[in-house]
């Protein structure tokens, strides 16, 4: 599908509706098309998704409304994803974090080295449904 046929993407950090019964997910990625797809897909599964392309936006969203789950890429515009996750963990120690990246990680390496920082690792090459399965595993529907 061509981008010209789709409506323009609106950064959703302005969209959260406090008080909604839907689970709130914060998606962080430096690529807007990725965020657009994530928001669209997770919305169809009943989640409310806020998006941020950098650490500054992510922190602002966390301050305004704490998410139930965080999905973060490894590479961001202004910082390293793992570093941002560490900072957010200080504020939200119990919030599950899923690392979603195209950088190929060995799952064993993730298990051994990153288990203290993240709750799950999902490759960007995996189907979106696997990401939804992982989200449901952490916060349910």
């Amino acid at each position, binding site marked *: *599908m061509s981008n010209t046929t789709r409506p323009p993407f609106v950064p959703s950090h302005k969209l959260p509706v406090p008080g909604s019964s839907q689970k709130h997910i914060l998606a962080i990625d430096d690529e807007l098309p990725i965020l657009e*797809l994530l928001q669209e*897909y997770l919305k*169809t599964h009943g989640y409310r998704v806020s998006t941020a392309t950098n650490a500054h936006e992510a922190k602002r969203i966390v301050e305004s409304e704490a998410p139930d789950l965080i999905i973060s890429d490894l590479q961001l515009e202004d910082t390293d994803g793992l570093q941002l996750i560490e900072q957010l963990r200080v504020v939200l120690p119990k919030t599950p974090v899923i690392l979603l990246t*195209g950088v190929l990680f060995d799952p064993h390496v993730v298990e051994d080295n990153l288990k203290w920082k993240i709750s799950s690792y999902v490759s960007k090459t995996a189907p*979106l*449904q696997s990401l939804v399965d992982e989200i449901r595993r952490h916060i349910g529907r």
Partner: protein
Amino acid sequence: MSTEPPPPPVAADPTMRRVLACFGLILAVLVLVVVVSLNNLSRSVATSDWVNHTHALITELDALQPTLNAAEGELSRYLLTADQRDHGSYQNKFAELGEHVDVAIALVAGSPTEKQQFQQIALLLAKRADVASQIVRLKKGGDAAALQRLLAQDAESHDHRELAHLIEKLRETQTDLLSARDRALFLQAQTTRWTVLTGLALDFLLLCGAAWLIRDALAARTLANRLLQQSNVELEEKVRQRTAELSATNAQLAAQSLEDRWSKQALEHQNRYNLLIIDSISDAVFVVTKLMNVSRLNPAAIHMTGLEPVELIDKPLARVLSLAGPTELAKPTYDPLARTLAEGHELRDKPACLTTKSGHSIPVRLNFYPLRDRDKVVGGVVILQLSAPAST
């Protein structure tokens, strides 16, 4: 511009024709009843006027004799008393009698027969008035003998009896006419009553007939309506099911579309990432086809050869690279890299010579790996490192 053909003529429905005929008859009966009733009503009004008129005439007739008697009584009193007051009473009573006569004449003016009958009465009354005038004149003149003769002559007359007879005759005529009019009025009322009742009964029968005629059509339409409603319910249920299926399919397709877009994004991202990795390597990398033609090279290779990609892509790698032999004469007649690729072997850290765009030869160390796609060699990768300068 096309014109639509006229619709085919609708076949006349015999039941509909009969029903329309019934309603036509009902309308005709109603019109007849209305006409007859209005006619009878007009006649009743006319009869009522006539009856009032007749009663008025009878009243006037009944008043004539008593008034005449009263007037003549006042005259007798005047003859006895010669009082002017009694003379005035006598005049008043005769004036009253004249009024009754005038009213009666007006009432009989429309009927020649009655007019003729009443004329005789009026003449007799006029005669009585004339006699009274003569008596009064003689009384005032003091001619007692003439007065006596006139009174004696009047006493022998039969005017009163004849007047009573004439009045009674005219009154009986009017009474008979009243009775006839009463019978006629009763008959008119009866006619109106029967006309209305007969019309209503006929209309009711015609309505029953119309209902009888359309009963089958009504039953058929009721059944068709019920079937239509049932079909509508079934259709709505099918539409609902189909809509639900389409919605589910649509949601599935939307999810699949998102998955496809996600896969495409991931693939592009992965490809871009891999290219970044390859392009960031400082060693020269050449990707070759099975025929050892260059299909791809990284920036380090471009920098090392000084050639642009357009000068190398789809060109034999041997144009810029050769394995180093002991001497120029010892160069093999075949391409050792092509042979290695064909055999699926690898070469590691072999000395080679890279020819730059300017014609200079640069000693390099060569690594060569065949590219396998599911155990099938589809090409190869050549990685060149600059040889370390010989130690002096």
